[in-house]
């Protein structure tokens, strides 16, 4: 039936168009997956429901993958979720292994996408129950678990990592207060009432500051030709990548299902766990292929599993899912418990469309990656000029706001200062992404319990997650201490 719905209509060309635009949009810093989808939404009004929904879902799949391309090539995540990929991806690029890094992110993205789709098809019922089990204290604990990753992203200095994390948290407090509704840190600026979107922080910190640094340095040395060809891992390397991908599949499924931070946190947590369980943890941060495979797999799993709460409960768990919900509503379909009974053809069409979209993502990736590798080897002045122009146009299209471009430049300046003062970015990214979730659910829980903090220990999900975060954090700190002592002993 799914096949029938697909072949009869324009669904496959629409999926192709969606994937291409998704990769393009995802690769552009400033256009997040949800923005890429929202920009196409008006074009779907005249389409058949299945075609429209498949096209939007294809954009989502393409964009989550596309974000890794600039992360590897120019150390700038195109999407929030690709931030974790910059660590080892860009390092591999510097070592002349950009082609291999891109090959790994493409193939692991495909595996992640297919696994997420499988979970969506066979596990919707039980996974929807997981989504419902999350009460405010549990969400608070989930946020804390995400923040505990800061300990291992601090690049050697826990003190500096914590500083960056707290600054990120501060950025997240800008906007309307989640409980009382009073404006905080908005300075009378209506553009700040809805808060600062993480994508703006990300684009400023990574992309703009990279341009500021690049303009002060001489033209880069050409990467060796061998690294400039797209390359896939051989069997031996592939076996090494499997554990990280398995971790990515598990964490991606879980994070995707629980409405909240989604792909970004999934990627960071997977990176952290892949490092913990790897046979070569010392290579992480120094160009480890596992450090690319694991997060890229995880954030593509989310493209499937994030649809679980949307389809089964009618509740969008992320901005991207909210845009897809819009795509359903426009065509008079309301996702939720009745969707499967009322319009099964749309649901099966969507499953089929996601499968096609993942396959197309791989093929389109094969075609566009070589020109991408060629493009980043153009003269640097052109690259700087075009990247700036693309960032500005992309950021502007989110809200048609010049204020946002100003914000991005401000964060660029901050990023530049942080680089010169050795403050790490990644903990700040986590703070920005998770701060709001942690604060609002902390206060929501206390409203529920009448100010009693034991509510966090009474809720079983919350208790489990809190114990897990304490255990993971202390393990990491002990390990980093030991590693630091060892290197100190050697030199």
């Amino acid at each position, binding site marked *: 039936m799914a096949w029938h719905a697909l072949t009869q209509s324009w669904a496959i060309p629409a999926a192709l168009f969606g994937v291409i635009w998704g990769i393009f949009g995802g690769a552009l810093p400033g256009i997040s997956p949800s923005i890429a989808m929202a920009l196409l939404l008006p074009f779907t*009004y005249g389409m058949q429901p299945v075609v429209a929904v498949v096209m939007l879902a294809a954009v989502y799949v393409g964009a989550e993958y596309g974000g890794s391309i600039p992360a590897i090539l120019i150390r700038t995540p195109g999407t929030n979720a690709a931030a974790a990929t910059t660590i080892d991806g860009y390092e591999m690029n510097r070592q002349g292994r950009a082609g291999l890094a891109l090959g790994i992110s493409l193939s692991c993205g495909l595996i992640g996408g297919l696994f997420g789709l499988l979970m969506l098809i066979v596990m919707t019922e039980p996974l929807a129950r997981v989504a*419902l089990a999350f009460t405010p204290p549990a969400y608070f604990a989930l946020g804390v678990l995400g923040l505990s990753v800061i300990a291992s992203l601090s690049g050697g200095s826990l003190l500096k990592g914590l500083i960056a994390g707290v600054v990120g948290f501060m950025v997240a407090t800008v906007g309307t207060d989640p*409980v009382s509704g009073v404006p905080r840190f908005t300075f009378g600026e*209506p553009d700040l*009432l*809805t808060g600062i979107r993480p994508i703006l922080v990300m684009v400023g910190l990574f992309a703009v500051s990279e341009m500021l640094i690049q303009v002060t340095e001489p033209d880069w040395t050409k990467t060796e030709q061998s690294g400039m060809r797209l390359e896939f891992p051989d069997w031996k390397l592939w076996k090494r990548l499997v554990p990280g991908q398995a971790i990515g599949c598990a964490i991606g499924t879980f994070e995707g299902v629980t409405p909240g931070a989604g792909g970004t946190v999934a990627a960071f947590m997977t990176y952290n766990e892949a490092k913990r369980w790897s046979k070569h943890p010392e290579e992480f941060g120094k160009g480890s292929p596992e450090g690319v495979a694991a997060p890229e797999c995880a954030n593509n799993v989310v493209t499937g599993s994030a649809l679980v709460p949307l389809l089964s409960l009618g509740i969008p768990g992320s901005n991207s899912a*909210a845009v897809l*919900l819009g795509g359903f509503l426009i065509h008079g379909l309301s996702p939720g*418990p009745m969707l499967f009974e009322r319009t099964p053809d749309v649901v099966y069409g969507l499953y089929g469309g996601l499968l096609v979209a993942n396959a197309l993502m791989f093929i389109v990736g094969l075609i566009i990656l070589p020109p991408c590798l060629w493009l980043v080897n153009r003269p640097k002045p052109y690259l700087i000029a075009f990247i700036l122009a693309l960032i500005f146009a992309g950021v502007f299209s989110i809200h048609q706001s010049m204020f946002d471009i100003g914000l991005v430049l401000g964060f660029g300046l901050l990023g530049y200062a942080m680089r010169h003062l050795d403050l790490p970015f990644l903990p700040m990214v986590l703070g920005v992404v998770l701060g709001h979730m942690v604060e609002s659910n902390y206060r929501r829980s206390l409203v529920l319990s009448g100010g009693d903090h034991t509510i966090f220990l009474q809720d079983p999900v919350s208790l489990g997650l809190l114990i897990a975060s304490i255990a993971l954090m202390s393990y990491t700190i002990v390990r980093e201490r030991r590693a630091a002592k060892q290197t100190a002993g050697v030199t």
Partner: protein
Amino acid sequence: MQAFRFLVLTFACAALAIGPGQAQNKYPVSTVTLVTHSSPGSGSDVFLRELIRHLGPEMGVSFVVENVRGGSGATAVAKVARGPADGSMFYATTPTYIQTTLLSKPQFGYDSLDPLVTVFFDPEVIFVRTESPFRSLKDVVAYSQKNIGRAKWGAANPGSLERIALERMSKLLGARAAIVTHEGGGDLLINVLNGTLDIGVGEIQEVSSQLEAKKVRLLASLTDQRIQTLPDLKTAKEEGVDLVVTKFRGLAGPKGVPDAVAAQWEAAMKKVLAKPEYKAVYEKENLIVALKGRAESRSFTTAFAKEVETTLRDLGVVK
């Protein structure tokens, strides 16, 4: 490339479908832009696009919906306030633009626009999950008065009309209920469905799919009279809780739009609302027709803003 041509084609078809038809009284411009602060696919956006499908042929005008987000509506208001006053640009109003004006005092507030028409009221309802012991609003009242400080009620957003309504209800009953706010209707729904909250308040279409699947039950509507499409649902007033939440949907333009244009809008709206095809659409969404012309919309908006302002000041949210 083929996919792209196909896109252009469908778009052209859509444009044709809403292209000019016959009109007795010619509208001064051929294209009208409706600006909304909500994002594509959200409630008000879908509402506008549905409206123009029926309104286009009636007025002999082609409509464009433009989503100008940012600034919680302030950006969109500013755009329209500075726009042409010849009837070619209007802003789709909801209570949000009044609240944003009061909360952040932007350069262009709600009073820099001139209300044109008011079309619908969105009915608000109190709902519980199906497993809940509460069968009527009276049960909720009884429980909250017996267990003071123990009741848990939820609203979608912190500064929303629903939140303010719950605060008033808690004060009215002396219940000192814990009022929990969320990041939108979806979050609220999860906490009602998993039993964290006793009741939730929201727009009826936000729970419609759960309602159909019999996962939630409606207890009362926060309207003046019973909702026509749900004749069995009692109003809160009938249950002894004097609480009405008015969420309106309408249009407002820059100052100086001629009265003749406003009259044309009112007349066209009246006809469209009576069309059976459109009626089916808005009745499915349980929207309440509240057509008001220009003069009435002006006084309604002023009164509404004053009421919200007083409440926000009483609650200490604005100085």
